[in-house]
Structure formats: structure tokens, C-alpha cells
């Protein structure tokens, strides 16, 4: 049922979108999403992919058009990242509030300033309150599978919400891997025709988005919250059906390695790949540790996480993001999820890999070993993040003038 091909994350996305029979693609280029855009254009130009491809004039316009097309009753795709995603922010709420089942690829890239083209999760996490399902992928295979899952999940009447699947700038987007691609006709059968309600339909005249009084606003938001909660059931259900249909690996809300869960590293995205190897090497050296990959970040799988971490002694959260003045996103979510457990594990927050900074297997092994051995393993006091691989000499506390500037 599946053929293995050499595909980058961007190519895997372009392929998934074609397999899904997307009807309208309004899109605006941004590095490093642009290579995917090129793939899609080629498929459309060469007649392999009959769809309405629209070369929009900006990211916010791309999302506006995506919503317009969804309200018109079609299956829609778009993609962006970093600056483009923030530029879209207002429309992200329009999409979720309008209950449009749009699927979007977000090629996670750090936010300027300082300017960067490399990976971190600050872009997607900045919009994590916008009512979108968010799934973070570990490799190109997961990118392709997740994209197909999400069309089924989002168009499910129990959900009817938009979703973004995230993978990382260059690490995933421009790196080719072996990807098992399902048979196109089988995908069509599995996915079925679009189940997108045309809210703007000449055959059924409705007016959308009237000014909403305080007596109603809360209920609409609550309905979204309930749909998001139902997605916690629908996401694994659809992933299991996909695994059955195509012989793909099952994918849950979380992905936890086998073995003892005394010391657990929690992370997401490409860092999970690195951590997977670190954990395996440690096991071979007789140090038991586990990896818990957060695959689905929104809705956040609180119950599933509590089950996994209930018996753990120590948890290290590895955040490829930072919220200045607060904590890493995973640190906050995990600590909050564990509240009320009878004997909750210690949780240490680590910030790593910002703006594409490499994170190595040996660094992660060291982190896990220190956390397993000592109650305060890092320089930072409890509740303060440890910044992995920080070159402190570069940040002079006495100088408030540490700006990203250059001189001639």
C-alpha cells in the first residue's frame, strides 16, 4: 500500500496536499516554505494536481483567502511560518471562530529580531491560543502522515476546527529522508470527498459574523473549547484508522519510548529525534531514561501526560522556544498538567535550540544524567530555566547595549 520515496519535509507536504485532493491553495512564499510552494506549482502546471492555486500578495491575505475558500465549501491548504504566521495572527482567530477546517503547514522558524532563518518553535507557540489544533512533527514521514490525518480530523463534524502541522526550518523542510507514500487511490477512498460546510452558499443564504452580544459570545467560545476537547479523541482515532489502512506506524497524542519511566525527557519536533537517540544510548550504558514526545500540543493532552508521568521521579522539559518574562511552553504545560498528582515528579525546564542552535546527543545525555542524579542539576534555581549551551561571555549583564547591530 505504500512506496518509499526520498522526500524533504517540504516535498512530503506538497505530496500530502496533492493526495488529499485539496481544491484551493492560496499561498505566499516565505523561506523555507517556498520550496514546497514550488513543488505544488509544478504539480499544478504539469496537470498532476487539479486545484485552484492562488499566488497571494501576503501571508495575511493567504489566510483570508483560505477562510474565504473554506466558507465557499472547499478543501483548503496553505503554508507559512515565522513572520508570516504572526502576520496572519488576526485571521487565525477568524478561521477557528468561523469553524473552518483549514489545514496549514508551519515550517517553524525563529522570529526576528535578531533576524534568523533557522528553526525554533516560537512562531507556532505565539499563536497557540488561536483555536487551532497544533501537531509537531519529528520527521518527514510524520509530516506526510499528519497532513493526511488532519484533513480527516478537521472535517469531522465532531471537530470542525482548523489545524496546523509544524516541522522545522531546514532541519525538516530541506532535508531528504525516506518517506513511505500511500497509494493515491487508497487515500481518496480513505479520506473521502471534502466535508466542508459552505457557510456562504447562494443556495442557502446566511449572514456570517453578526456583532455578538455578551449574552452569546461566551457560548461560541465554549463550543470551540468542546470541539477542541473532542479532538483529543478524534486525533488518535483517525491516526489509528490511517495506520490500519496503510500499514503506517500508529501515532497518538504523545509518543513515549519503551522502558522505565523514572527519568523522562519531554520535548517535541526534531529534538525528539535527537532525544530518542540519547535515551537509547543511555539505556545501553545502563542509565534508564525515557522520552515523551508531545505530538499534539493543541489540544494539550493533559490526561495522557499525567498517565505517562505519574510514576516518574524527574522530568526534564526541553523547550525549543522561550517566552520572555515567563517560561518555556512545555515547562509551563507540563508543570500545570502534573498539579495535583499524589507524588508529582520534579520538573526541570531547559531551553535549547533557539534560532537553529544545534542540540547534540551528548548534550542531552548529559542533561538527563545530571537530572537523574541530583535534585538541583543545573545552575538555575528551581522554577528558572536552564539555557542549554549558552555562551555567557556574549551577554554582559552590565551592558544594556547588547543589540544585534553591525558596523561598517
Amino acid at each position, binding site marked *: 500500500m505504500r512506496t518509499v520515496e526520498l522526500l524533504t519535509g517540504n516535498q512530503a507536504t506538497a505530496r500530502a496536499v496533492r493526495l488529499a485532493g485539496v*481544491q*484551493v491553495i*492560496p499561498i505566499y512564499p516565505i523561506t523555507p516554505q517556498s520550496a514546497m510552494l514550488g513543488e505544488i506549482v509544478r504539480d499544478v502546471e504539469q496537470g498532476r494536481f487539479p*486545484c*485552484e492555486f*492562488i*499566488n*497571494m*500578495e*501576503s501571508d*495575511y*491575505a*493567504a489566510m*483570508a*483567502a*483560505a*477562510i*474565504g*475558500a*473554506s*466558507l*465557499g*465549501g*472547499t478543501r*483548503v491548504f496553505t503554508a507559512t511560518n515565522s513572520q508570516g504566521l504572526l502576520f496572519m495572527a*488576526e*485571521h487565525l482567530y*477568524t478561521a477557528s471562530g468561523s469553524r473552518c477546517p483549514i489545514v496549514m503547514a508551519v515550517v517553524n522558524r525563529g522570529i526576528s529580531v535578531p533576524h534568523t532563518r533557522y528553526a525554533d518553535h516560537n512562531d507556532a507557540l505565539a499563536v497557540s491560543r488561536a483555536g487551532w489544533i497544533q501537531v509537531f512533527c519529528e520527521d518527514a514521514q510524520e509530516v506526510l502522515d499528519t497532513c493526511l490525518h488532519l484533513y480527516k480530523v478537521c472535517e469531522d463534524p465532531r471537530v470542525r476546527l482548523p489545524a496546523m502541522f509544524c516541522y522545522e526550518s531546514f532541519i525538516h523542510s530541506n532535508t531528504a529522508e525516506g518517506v513511505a507514500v500511500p497509494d493515491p487511490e487508497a487515500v481518496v477512498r480513505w479520506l473521502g470527498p471534502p466535508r466542508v460546510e*459552505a*457557510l*456562504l*452558499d*447562494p443556495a442557502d*443564504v*446566511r*449572514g*456570517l*459574523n*453578526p*456583532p*455578538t452580544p455578551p449574552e*452569546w459570545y461566551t457560548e461560541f467560545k465554549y463550543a470551540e473549547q468542546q470541539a477542541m476537547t473532542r479532538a483529543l479523541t478524534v486525533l488518535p482515532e483517525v491516526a489509528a484508522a490511517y495506520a490500519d489502512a496503510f500499514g503506517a506506524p500508529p501515532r497518538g497524542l504523545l509518543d513515549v519510548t519503551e522502558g522505565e519511566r523514572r527519568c523522562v525527557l519531554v520535548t517535541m519536533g526534531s529534538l525528539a529525534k535527537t532525544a530518542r537517540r540519547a535515551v537509547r544510548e543511555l539505556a545501553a550504558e545502563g542509565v534508564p531514561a525515557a522520552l515523551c514526545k508531545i505530538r499534539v500540543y493543541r489540544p494539550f493532552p493533559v490526561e495522557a501526560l499525567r498517565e505517562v508521568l505519574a510514576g516518574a521521579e524527574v522530568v526534564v522539559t526541553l523547550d525549543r522556544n522561550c517566552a520572555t518574562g515567563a517560561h518555556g511552553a512545555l515547562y509551563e504545560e507540563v508543570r500545570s498538567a502534573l498539579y495535583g498528582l499524589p507524588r508529582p515528579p520534579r520538573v526541570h525546564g531547559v531551553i535549547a535550540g533557539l534560532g537553529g542552535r544545534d542540540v547534540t546527543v551528548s548534550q542531552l545525555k548529559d542533561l538527563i544524567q545530571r537530572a537523574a542524579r541530583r535534585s538541583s542539576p543545573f545552575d538555575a534555581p528551581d522554577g528558572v530555566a536552564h539555557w542549554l549551551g549558552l555562551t555567557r561571555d556574549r551577554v554582559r549583564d552590565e551592558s544594556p547595549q547588547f543589540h544585534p547591530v553591525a558596523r561598517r
Partner: protein
Amino acid sequence: MPSPQPIPTLPKSGRFTLPPVLMGTACEGCGALPAADILAETLGAKMAVVCPASCAATFSLSYTGMAWRVPFVHWIFESAPAAATGLRHAYDARGLKDVHVVCFAGDSGTADIGFQALSGAASRNENILYICYDNEVAMNTQGQATSTSTPLARTPTTPGGAGLLRKDVPRIMAAHGIPYVATAAVSHPDDYRQKLRRAARITGFRYLQVLTPCPIAWGYPHPDTLDVTRLAVETGLWMLYEVDGGKWRVSHRPKRRRPVREYLSLQRRFAALRPREMQALQRRVDGAWRGVR
């Protein structure tokens, strides 16, 4: 202040009528109402309307009634043409090619915050009909100046009078090379109707800018809306023309242009104008007409 009464000038025929629940949301003498009504009457049922944040968005729709009898969405301020683009392509994908996708937007949503999306959709020559109803202010937020405000007009954000530049959006749209551009005024409904009919027969991006005075922002008694609009046309301040397939044509030439002073003196927003400033505006109008055959 907006009046809770229905406006007496609202035409009762056509397909844009305020249901009782929306009566209090529009003001007496609002120029946008006849602009919407003539649009609805001319295009009929075969259209869907995307309306960005504006007075029109507010008085078009409530949970218990709507003024349009076609699919309508109250949209985000800056991106109506982009949303309309998506809707157009969805309709095309579904074989609904005969349904007009129409943007009905104010001048802020067109010339200022919405300008990028407007230019983008025009550059792609999307098959959309765009109507800008121009009351020269951001009236949904109490009448702040926009880039289409008449020079020297007083508004809450230009208490000393608006700047001397007025963004000429129809000319900018014509410069995009789109198939049809026109100006219209609610005082000249036949001219407006004819342009709508012409636009409806063309495929591609069509842009109409309709002068729709606002008695509250402009400061004149509300029954005078059509008279004030007519004077804007007869003084030559608001030129009625079309650019059809690149061909310019003035559709209404005032027989003898009236002095702009007559128009300005009717409105409180120009009350502080000095004679020198009135003369400057008059010279500007004279200059604009000099090249017109």
C-alpha cells in the same frame, strides 16, 4: 449621534432593506444605504457580499435579521478582497461561476488598512466586483480622517483640517490595468446603475467608488444628503467617469460647474475654511478639469 429612527430617504424597493431589528443601527440620511440598495437591486440574487469592518458591516446584519438577501459575511477590516479571492475560487471550483463575488467596503477598508489586499486582488485580476462606498471618514469609529478625506476637512483626528493630499484610488486602480474602473454618486442613481450593469457583464477585477455622504461626519442636516452629493458632482469636486477597457470617459459633465464654495459652505467640516483655502480648492478642481475633454 446615530438616530434610532428609520431614515426617510431609504428606497423601499430593491433587495437591500433594513429589517426592524437593524433600524437603529443606521443613521438618518446615510449615503451608504442607497448605495447598497442600488447594488443589490441591480445585481439581484446572484451574488455573495464580503463586507469588511465598517458602518455597512454593522447595519447589515444581526442574529435576528439581515439587510441583504444574499450570502453575506462581516469580514476583517484589512482583507475583504483577499477573502473574496478565496470565495471566488471556491465558487469556481464548485462550478458556481455565474455568482458574483462582491466586496462592499468603506473608504478606510479600501484606501487605508485594506489597500494592500485591494491592490493584490486587482494585480491578479481576480473576478471580483469591488464597491467602495466613500464617505471620506472612518465613521464606524466616529469619523476620523482617512486618505480619501477632502483636503482641509475637519475631523476628530484633523481638528485643524485634513492635509492637502487626497488619495485618488480610482486612478490608482485604473493604473493596475484592470478591465473596469468607475466613480459614481448616490445623487446620480441612473449613472451608478448603468455602471453596475456594465461591470456585471465584465470578467475580472472591477472597481467602483461611490460617493456616499455622511450627515453626521460632514455636518449638514440629514434630509440634505442627496443635495450635498449632487453639489459635490456639480461643483466638479467629485468627477463621474469610467475607465472601460482602458478607455476613459466622463459620464456626467456639469453644464456649468458651480463654485466649490457652494458645496463647502453647506458642511460644518469646512466651517473654519478661510477664503484663501477655498480658492486653493477651487484652483485644484479647475486644474483637474482642465485636461478633461
